[in-house]
């Protein structure tokens, strides 16, 4: 990226030590006092190494006093001599202000204090760290495995894990989901999923019903766990990792996911992306966002309407147009593999005019389509009585759970990484972040529909730019070495605004051409965690509608 067009980037990631964001790290260190053992420098932010028994006090101080109210991610990993949990903190008001809290624990006694009392979202993140890496958390309310079955032997991302050892489990050892049948109580346990029409994949909701009212619901995930992190760890930075992100959020959001990896890998290896490629990335990513939001709209209405109804098929029809455009551009319909470190793989297909014409036709058609959706859905009284005021998510609760994306914006949280932590070409374009104060299922749909319009605005500007771009200056890729070996122990956490929210990746390098730790922060994972807050006390149909409005893709939840 050129220095003139990307003023924010140099501020964020100078090659030198201290990341020069607006955070006064020395003041923070004074504040934390003797909780801090020492300081580390990560590519994205300073990290404070905190004593394992002082995690809560350190996090509370950062949250309450300094306003780091967004626990974006918890990355855990095992070194030769220690376990380490990293809490990546941000501010909802300004996500460029970041700080990491690093908690090392000895290998023979890997217990650290849980962050759950401070940030609710740490619940699932720490369970995942326990499950995959083997770190244990004191004070955690419910430290069970989350992605793997309860019967699993060992922690697959740990150093001592033997991958060749078969996991032999007798049938009786498995958890019986009907063990407690609630026969003597007034309530009824009902297992919604893993095979259920409304779960949008393989999700299992353990719901306790009192009549039709949901007393308690607990999402049980992991059915689609495909070891994405480990696969990424065994691939080389340069080419082998990029195809994987397409498979996280496979609801057409491939390029958005690829960008998450591209961003972190480019930061880690100090790769500059040519401006032309940034525009290409921005355009293709927004096309993906439209496709993903249309899918979300269609499936949400499927949950409300019941059958494969008009809305679903209309959304599919319009999404098909986007898919065809993306196919023309990338050669693929879903698993695009379009981005490369330092740019994109291909330029706009020849003849260029024809491609731009197709895109423009789609953009010209879109407003009338959206009008039709508003006629059919949002202005329908029956639809309104079903969705308005159901699945309410208060902004404070949303922040507790690290909720991001359209779900957070529908709760009135003005948080969009495209604007707040700029990357790509977004800062130079004219578009708005959509928020809504309804906090309910209806708002979440409305926000997505309006975001489609904003994405269309972005694409239109990108097409204008690309059409007039000087022919000699169309550099689609920077010169990137064949092999990338970032410095040893360089760590970076970077996020982009995916279709569902903040899609972040933490990478630690060990000096080889493969990442030593590759941790994915999935927006769906955090958003799904807030489901019980929204659905408990409501009716079963509202639970289903709320789940639909969260727009989760299980491939991204389970990774």
């Amino acid at each position: 990226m050129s220095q003139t067009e990307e003023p924010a980037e140099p501020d964020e990631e100078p090659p030198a030590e201290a990341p020069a964001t607006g955070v006064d790290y020395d003041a923070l260190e004074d504040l934390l006092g003797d909780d801090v053992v020492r300081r580390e420098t990560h590519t994205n932010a300073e990290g404070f190494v905190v004593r394992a028994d002082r995690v809560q006090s350190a996090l509370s101080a950062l949250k309450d006093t300094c306003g780091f109210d967004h626990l974006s991610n918890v990355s855990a990993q095992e070194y030769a001599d220690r376990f380490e949990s990293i809490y990546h903190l941000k501010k909802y008001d300004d996500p460029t202000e970041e700080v990491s809290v690093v908690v090392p624990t000895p290998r023979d006694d890997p217990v650290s204090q849980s962050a759950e009392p401070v940030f609710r979202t740490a619940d699932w993140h720490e369970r995942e760290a326990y499950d995959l890496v083997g770190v244990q958390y004191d004070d955690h309310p419910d430290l069970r495995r989350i992605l793997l079955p309860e019967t699993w032997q060992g922690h697959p991302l740990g150093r001592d894990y033997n991958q060749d050892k078969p996991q032999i489990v007798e049938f009786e050892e498995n958890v019986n989901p009907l063990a407690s049948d609630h026969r003597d109580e007034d309530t009824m346990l009902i297992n919604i999923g893993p095979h259920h029409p409304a779960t949008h994949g393989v999700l299992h909701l353990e719901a306790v019903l009192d009549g039709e009212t949901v007393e308690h619901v607990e999402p049980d995930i992991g059915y689609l766990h495909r070891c994405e992190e480990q696969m990424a760890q065994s691939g080389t930075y340069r080419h082998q990792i990029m195809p994987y992100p397409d498979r996280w959020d496979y609801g057409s959001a491939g390029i958005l996911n690829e960008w998450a990896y591209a961003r972190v890998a480019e930061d880690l290896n100090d790769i500059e992306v040519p401006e032309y490629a940034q525009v290409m990335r921005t355009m293709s990513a927004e096309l993906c966002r439209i496709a993903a939001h249309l899918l979300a709209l269609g499936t949400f209405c499927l949950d409300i309407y019941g059958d494969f109804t008009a809305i679903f098929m209309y959304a599919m029809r319009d999404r098909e147009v986007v898919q065809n455009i993306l196919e023309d551009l990338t050669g693929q319909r879903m698993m695009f593999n379009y981005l490369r470190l330092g740019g994109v793989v291909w330029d706009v297909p020849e003849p260029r005019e024809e491609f731009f014409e197709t895109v423009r036709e789609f953009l010209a058609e879109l407003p009338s389509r959206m009008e039709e959706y508003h006629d059919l859905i949002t202005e329908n009284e029956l639809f309104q009585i079903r969705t308005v005021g159901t699945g309410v998510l208060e902004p404070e609760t949303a922040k507790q759970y690290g909720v991001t994306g359209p779900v957070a914006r529908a709760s009135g949280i003005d948080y969009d990484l495209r604007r707040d932590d700029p990357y790509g070409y977004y800062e130079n374009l004219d578009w708005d972040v959509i928020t809504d104060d309804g906090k309910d299922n209806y708002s979440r749909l409305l926000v997505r529909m309006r975001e489609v319009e904003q994405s269309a605005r972005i694409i239109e500007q990108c097409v204008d730019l690309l059409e007039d771009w000087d022919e000699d200056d169309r550099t689609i890729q920077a010169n990137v070495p064949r092999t990338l070996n970032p410095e040893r122990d360089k760590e970076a956490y970077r996020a982009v605004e995916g279709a569902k929210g903040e899609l972040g990746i933490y990478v630690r390098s060990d000096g080889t051409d493969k990442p030593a730790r590759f941790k994915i922060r999935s927006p769906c994972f955090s958003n799904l965690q807030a489901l019980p807050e929204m659905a408990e006390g409501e009716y079963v149909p509202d639970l289903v509608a709320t789940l639909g409005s969260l727009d989760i893709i299980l491939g991204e939840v389970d990774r």
Partner: protein
Amino acid sequence: MATAPVALAEWLGYAAAPLWLELLLDVVVAGIIVTVMLLTSALAGPWAKRKITAMFTDRIAINRVGPFGLGYIVADSVRLLSKELIIPDGADRPAYDVAPAVLPLSALLGFAVVPMGSGLQLADPEIGLAYVFAVSSMASVGMVVGGYASGSKYSLLGSMRSVAESIAYEIPLVVTAASVVLLAGSLRLSDIVAAQQGTLVSLGPIAIPAWYGFLNPFAMALFAVAALAEVGRNPFDLGEAGTELVGGYITEYSGVYFVLFFLGEFLHIFLSGAIVATLFLGGPLGPGPAWLGVVWFGAKIWAFFLFTQWCRSAVPRIRIDQMLQIGWKGLLVLSFANLILTAIIVGVIA
């Protein structure tokens, strides 16, 4: 017009048919009616449903088997009948087996008294309308037994919803029908049809027939909404609620049992269409000679079918509490208001 068995007996030269002949003719006519209804509703119904839904949702639908995919009717019958019948472990056996038959049976019994035009009517009792409602509401027994006997929580929830729905909407349905009875002065269905003959008003060349749908469109709207709930179609699709309860009371049914439920639902839509046509759209009445009656009647039934499919494609499903609210606080009050107003008007004029 005499019912079909009586007419046949007269045609054979019997002024008063002996019992054996009457019974025989009843069986023959019943056979014809059942065949006709089964053919139209259960066989053509699913085909038409797919085609109609496809039109609403901008698709093409089946077009590979035969012209317009009509061969699909045969192919799908074979497919449905040859599927494995899976009976869950926890099923309550005799009840589980009986339930699927109740639904189509109750609908077919209802057709017995419906005047389909062209003389096609099995019986014409004085209490025809009451009989139709009595037998068609037997369907909810089938649903609740099936749902309860399946031994599945989804089925149980679905059947409970269906019963709540039936109870809440049966009353407005019957009360609205009663307002038609006030107008016609008879419960006999052929009398109700006969009362709708003639012209309501003539607007130049267009003569609006004296159908009760035109005389009291408000009652017809009420009845149509309640009928939608009775047949469990959107927005009252709660009993099955595919995306919530998987399939409601039919979740655990497969093979032939599923076919019977499926058939029963289609027959019920057609029976509801038949009642709407009889009460509000003049039954088999229409332009042209009287023998065209069955064609007009069929067209009116299919129009109602189209209406249900339209709702299915375009209207969201409401929640159980909202459904009960609309039923008990809305439709019930409105239907009684309609009844009382009709009674007053009929009393003043007549």
